[in-house]
């Protein structure tokens, strides 16, 4: 039975419970549902709102180094503090916050296995008291831009093809993992009417991407699958540690969970998260797209046109 390459990045609920009073540990809740923390959180935990705290209010990007340092100082997190993330949705947003913290170079990071759900399933205590910690001294030192992919990085990664090129194959040892649902990958699902802000004008996926939904790496209870199961999942689809891998989803949070699984847990050395993801790629003029649902519809229409017409005189 294999072990994770970096087992220390994952802690169990019992470890968190034992370290609630540890001044060198800061438990951070990060959720999709912004009110969950207020409804009750792990005693002593602080909240990081991925939207309000980590994102620039004007441009689609993260806060700058000064803003990040201010945030951590306010939360009482020093450069040597061990930050433990947990949250809802099988730790999607916990992993996203972890990834952003890593981007800014914070070294001591962990995720609580099973997230909020496991803590509550085990009937561990929650409270509503918002802790106030002494502001800490924090400065951003060595950043890690190598874990982030931008749109042009992805275009280069797939070989800079022309958008109308009939067949696009990834260069050798390059891999692209689309972690969305099969319906999003195939182009059948788009954003819903009248809610375009997080949707895309086009459906489908980035050419060369392999569909491995994020949920296949977690158990039903929200905990991560074993190292053997994860290895079989990804290597079974041709994804291995020798590759230069980019993960993406719709807005970068599900793919940050997959980034965490591959790079942090399994030790794959070269994994980047494309946080622009499909809401960027599916809206940009002139980028190549594969859309199986459109291709199927086009073939069906062509076949229908070839059938003999019947009628009455």
């Amino acid at each position, binding site marked *: 039975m294999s072990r994770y390459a970096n087992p220390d990045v994952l802690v169990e609920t019992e470890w968190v419970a034992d370290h609630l009073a540890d001044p060198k540990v800061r438990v951070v809740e990060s959720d999709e*549902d912004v009110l969950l923390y207020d409804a009750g959180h792990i005693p002593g935990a602080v909240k990081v709102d991925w939207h309000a705290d980590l994102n620039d209010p004007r441009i689609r990007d993260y806060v700058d180094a000064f803003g990040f340092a201010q945030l951590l100082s306010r939360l009482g997190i020093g450069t040597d503090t061990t930050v433990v993330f947990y949250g809802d949705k099988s730790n999607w947003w916990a992993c996203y916050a972890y990834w952003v913290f890593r981007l800014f170079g914070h070294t001591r990071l962990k995720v609580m296995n099973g997230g909020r759900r496991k803590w509550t399933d085990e009937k561990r205590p929650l409270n509503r008291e918002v802790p106030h910690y002494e502001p800490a001294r924090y400065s951003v030192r060595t950043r890690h831009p190598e874990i982030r992919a931008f749109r042009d990085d992805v275009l280069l990664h797939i070989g800079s093809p022309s958008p109308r090129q009939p067949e696009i194959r990834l260069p050798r040892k390059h891999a692209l993992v689309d972690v969305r649902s099969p319906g999003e990958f195939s182009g059948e699902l788009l954003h819903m*009417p*009248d809610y375009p802000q997080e949707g895309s004008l086009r459906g489908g996926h980035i050419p060369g991407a392999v569909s491995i939904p994020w949920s296949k790496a977690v158990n039903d209870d929200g905990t991560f699958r074993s190292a053997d199961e994860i290895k079989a999942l990804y290597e079974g689809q041709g994804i291995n540690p020798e590759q230069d891998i980019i993960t993406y989803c719709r807005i970068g949070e599900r793919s940050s969970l997959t980034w965490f699984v591959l790079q942090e847990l399994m030790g794959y050395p070269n994994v980047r998260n494309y946080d622009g993801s499909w809401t960027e790629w599916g809206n940009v003029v002139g980028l190549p797209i594969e859309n199986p649902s459109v291709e199927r519809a086009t073939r069906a229409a062509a076949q229908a046109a070839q059938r003999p017409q019947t009628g009455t005189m």
Partner: protein
Amino acid sequence: MAEACHRERLGVAPQATRQEIIDFLLDQAASPSHHGKLEPCDVTMVAGNPGCGDVITVYLRVDAARDAVARASFVGEGCTISQAAASVLMERVQGSPLGEIEAMDANEMMEALGREVVASRPRCATLALSALKGAVKAHRSQQLRRGAAG
């Protein structure tokens, strides 16, 4: 007048504290009003992001004689704010003229829900309203098509 005042009062109390607003939203999400499929209905409208995020399905039955909502309901999944917003909206619009729904805007929803708390998630707060407006629009299109068909 009394009915209009009653409708305006639906939502969080104007002087509510932040914690009271949060408790109100949690209660609404936990025990939503007019929740469930409506059969038969004139229009079904889905809004949101399947696979990632909030989804609301609104069911609308129209009182054609009054051009008003005969009954509306919803089902959905997602964050507390989006589900609470749907509950508050459904409570507000039963019997409302369709024109009133067409005139509703995001600001009304934000005030009804407690702007101080939902301001950071305007899309979640207005998702149900988008779905309901979409349903009314679809109903109008159906009416035009029936009118054109004679």
